[in-house]
Every structure is written in C-alpha cells, then in structure tokens.
C-alpha cells in the first residue's frame, strides 16, 4: 500500500484548520469575550451557575432526543411529555411521597416512550412515520396533561428532596451525568454500536442479524426516560408545574442537537455534539439577555447564529475536500 506523505502544513494553514474545525466553539468564544467586556459580571461564578441551571432541562431533553435522531427518527412529543410528567411529579410530591415523585414519573415516561417506540418499530417506520406518530402523541399527551389536573397551575408545596434536585447546580450535574452515561453507552457498548448501525443503514443492520425493532424501541424508550428526568427537574427548578410548560421545547431540543452536529439522517453524531449544541444555545441566550436584547431581536440573532455556525462548518468541510 502506497501512502505518500503530505508536505507539512504551514503554520498559517494549521491555525485556519483549528479555527474552522471548531467554528461553533470559536464563534461562542468570540461572543463570550464581547459580552464579558461589556458586562464584566458575565464571567462570574454566579452567572456560570445560572447558565448551567438554565441549560440543564433543555439539555436533558436534547440528550434524549439524540437517541431518537441517531436512529434516524424524530420525537415531537418530548415537550408535552415533559408537561405531563411535571404535573404527575408535582401531584405525587405534594402528596408527601417525594422519592416516589421522582421515580414514578420517570418510569411512566419510559413506558410512554416504549409505546411510541413500539408503534414506530411495529410499522417499520423512520423519519416520516415518527414525525406523524409523535406529532399525534404530542397532541394526546398535551391534552392529558391538561385533563389530569383540570388545566390548573400547580405550586410545589413539598419541601424535601424533590425540591432540592432542581436547585443551584444540581440539574447541571444530572445533565452532565446523563451525557457521560449516554456517551459511554453509545461509544463503548455493543448496544450503542448496534444502535448507531441501525440508524445509519437499517437494511444492512437487519441483514447483519441485528434485531432492528428492538433498537427502535430502545431509542424511544431512552428518549422517554430522559425526557421524564427533564420533566421532574423542571418543576423542581421552578417550584411549579404548568400543563403547558413544555410547549415548543421539542424544537429547541432538536435545534440544540443539530447545531452541535448530530445528523438528522441518523447514524451520525454523538452526545458530545449534543453537549456542545446545548451549551452554545444556552450561552447565546444568556449573553443576549445580559446585553439587554429584548426577546424579538434575540430570535433574529439566534437564527442568524445557527445559520452562520452551519455555513462555517460547511465551508470548512469544503476546504478539506479540496485539499483532499
């Protein structure tokens, strides 16, 4: 096998390489420095904590969503799932059983995920089927969340463990732990490997003797379980549950995954990508709030940054292509 060595890259080339390989991160660093100059308080521990606290719920959702995206599907119902789980959790917690209020709703969420996965696996569905099925599930779950408590806003009156898991940096610990565990599952276990293979080419996976239905089922169950965790964290963080709390969270979760580099076609991406995406979007929102941008122009900037991050990424890939 002939492998010719390439001439050593010039320093300038290498710098451009590093920059363009990590376009999103550098974009973020730039933003951070600008904000930090304008608002020195930005770089304080307290704000750092705030950011962690703010991204963790959406981060958990994105983490669950990653499983589903990796297998080439999409789940539009995680937001309403979160609403429903929040209501359940607070109902149980206010009844005094706080541990149960943490565990039971998460298991319920896993079960709901199993049902969704069961349908998708049963019909051999992928993106299209999961889109519609979970869009339907979104409407059912949101309605159930409203029906259960008569559509009321619920305060958390519990005072024990349930209220502590959402305080300070705790949700962030949960989020980071999830990322580490999921990344381990994905890259270091045969389960994760097969999941990735199924996502990348289900036909080939089937002909390799992989039980592809099982992996569709599991991807949705993991997504359910993890959005259940988000559903418990949210009321614990805000100390109230709202039957419409999760509205539109699903799009934000997907955006975070995709900005970080998880592919919507399945089979490509990792939880590290998700982590990056969540942090980028979280820091962006935080800095815009600090800059005093009202929520309207914030949307414009957010959209622009997402597009820009991707454009840079693509330019980078093209450069690499040209140089072989």
């Amino acid at each position, binding site marked *: 096998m002939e492998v010719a060595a390439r001439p050593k890259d010039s320093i300038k080339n290498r710098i451009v390489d590093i920059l363009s390989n990590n376009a999103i991160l550098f974009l973020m660093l730039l933003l951070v420095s600008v904000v930090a100059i304008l*608002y020195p*308080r*930005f770089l*304080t521990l*307290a*704000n750092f904590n*705030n950011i962690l*606290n*703010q991204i963790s*719920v959406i981060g958990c959702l994105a983490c669950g969503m990653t499983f589903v995206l990796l297998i080439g599907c999409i789940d539009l119902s995680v937001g309403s799932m979160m609403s429903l789980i929040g209501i359940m959790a607070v109902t149980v917690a206010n009844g005094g059983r706080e541990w149960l209020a943490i565990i039971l709703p998460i298991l319920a969420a896993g079960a709901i995920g199993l049902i969704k996965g069961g349908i998708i696996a049963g019909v051999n569905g992928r993106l299209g089927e999961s889109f519609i099925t979970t869009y339907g599930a979104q409407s059912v779950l*949101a309605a159930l969340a*409203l029906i259960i408590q*008569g*559509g*009321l*806003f619920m*305060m958390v009156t519990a005072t024990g463990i349930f209220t502590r898991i959402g*305080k*300070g940096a705790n949700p962030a610990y949960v989020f980071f732990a999830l990322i580490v565990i999921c990344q381990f599952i994905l890259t270091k276990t045969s389960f994760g490997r097969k999941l990735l293979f199924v996502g990348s080419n289900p036909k080939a996976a089937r002909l390799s003797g992989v039980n592809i239905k099982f992996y569709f089922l599991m991807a949705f169950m993991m997504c359910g379980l993890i959005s259940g965790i988000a559903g418990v964290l*949210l009321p614990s*963080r*805000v*100390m*109230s549950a*709202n*039957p*419409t*709390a999760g*509205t*539109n969270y699903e799009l934000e979760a997907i955006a975070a995954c995709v900005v970080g580099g998880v592919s919507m076609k399945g089979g490509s991406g990792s939880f590290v990508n998700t982590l990056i995406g969540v942090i980028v979007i979280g820091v962006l*929102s*935080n800095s815009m*709030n*600090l800059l*005093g941008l*009202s*929520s*309207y122009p914030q949307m414009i900037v957010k959209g622009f940054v997402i597009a820009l991050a991707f454009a840079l990424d693509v330019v980078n890939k093209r450069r690499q292509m040209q140089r072989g």
Partner: protein
Amino acid sequence: FAVASAEAPAARKVFFTNAFFTAPFCAPLNAQAMATAAENNIELTIVDGQADASVQLDQIKTAIDQGYDGIIYFPADAAGSITIVNTLNESGIAYAIIDSKVDASVAETIPVFAGPDNVEMGRVAGRACVEQIGENAKVVCLMGSAGTDPATNRQKGFEEIISQYPGIEILAAQNVDGWDPAIAMSIMQDYITRFGDEIEFLFTHDDGIFQGAQQAIAAAGLTGKIKAVSTGANNVGVAAIKSGELYGSVLHSAKEEGQLGVEAVIAVMDGEIKNGDQEWFKCMSPLVTLENVAEWEGWGW
C-alpha cells in the same frame, strides 16, 4: 318522561371559543362558565381557539351554521377580531365578547364586553410601586406573552403612572413567551447578573411569572430586597403575599370573568342588550396585599 321534559323550557345552546383554552388562567374560567351556564339551564360547548383568529373564525362559522343560540367569543387578538365581529353581526346571532377587547374599528358594533380593564390594572400596580419604593428607584418588568391584549395594556397602564415620576427608571422589560414561569426564571436570573442589586422593584404581568422569577430572586438571596407587585391575585399570588415574597397583586378573577361572560350572553339572548350597546361587564381589579388578603382569597383560583 316526555311530558316532564315538555314542562321545563328546552335548554339553550351556547358556543364558547376560548382563544387561550389551555392557559392555566382559563381552567377556572371555563369551569365557572360551565357552572353558571348550568345554573341558567344553558348547554355550553367550549372549544380551543388555539390563539389563532383564523381558527376562531372557522369555529364561529361552523357554530353559526349549526344553529347555536348564543356565542361567547374570547378573541385571540384585537386586530384579528374585525372579520369575526362582522361575521357575528351579519349572522344576527346573540354574542358576547370576553376577556380581551376587539379592534377599535368594530368596537362600536358589539353588544357587550365582559372582562377586566387591563390598563386600569396596570395603573393600580404602578401606584403600588410608587407607594412601595418612593419616587426614586430602579424597576424591571416581566411582561406577558408578546402581542396579547393584557401584556400590552397592563404595561401601558403601569408606564402611564411611572412616567409621572422621573426618578423611577425602568431598567429592562421583557416579554415572557407563553407566560412560562421557567422562562421568567431564566430572564430574572440574567437580570440579576446584569444589574446585581440595583434592582429595587419587579413588576410581573402574572402570578405564575412572578413565581418563576421569585425562584431566581430567592436563589440570589434577594428575597425581600426586591419589592414586587404582580397581577392575578390567584392562589399562587396569594401564597406569595402571605409568605411576604410578594407585596401585592392586582386581582383578575378568572371565576368572575367566566360568570360575567355567561351572564352577558344571556342578557343578549334575552334581548336586554342589543348589538351596538357596548356594555362593559367589568371585572374588579383591587390590589390584594397582606392587609386585605383574607377578603379576596378565593376570588382568584
């Protein structure tokens, strides 16, 4: 059996399109409307207007086609109500508007509006603010969902009062999408980072928003240092008032509004009010504080 039902007058059927059906505020409103309707021998159907004037127009057209006796219309937004009000007027059906006002161009044609005076509510909050912090202070506001009637008008009333005191500065004001406490919490966290302990006063358009913001305030150890006035005075607000986290909240009773809405449409169906009368069944908007909380508890939800 048939004889018995012949004696009682047949129930009248009323259709209610609620633009914000799923909002927590509307849960008690819907429930009270159902109750009042039942008391008055009315069969009430409530549908979700999905915050969209176009959806509501379709619903109302179908309802007119179905031959309902009366319609209660909770507009998603003022501008979008023009066609709907015209449609209602043309059909000759009895109807009442609740909660949010219709567009000025058709306001003169409506028979009755049942709802709060949002501008006045803002004014009440503004006065409470001045009362609390004096004529020199720094304020932040967390407003309701962008573009909605309450968010626009409550802020308008509030600023009307505040603007009379040049010493009071509004540091920042931001809409809270979907009146979501979680979003309110994040915004408040960032306000605290940005302004530190400069913030002396917080005005929120809803007790739920306040409740979210309060978590950020508590986490920063600023409870009590930031005085706050909210709107709603529902259970959430009342609890916060009692615990001292919230100075006061301007009442907006969902129950009262639900009841007034049904009473209003009955009045129109009975012919007591005609199109163009522009009656206003106004909801009360007192400021609920620790002093009078006992009196008003339970009016919210």
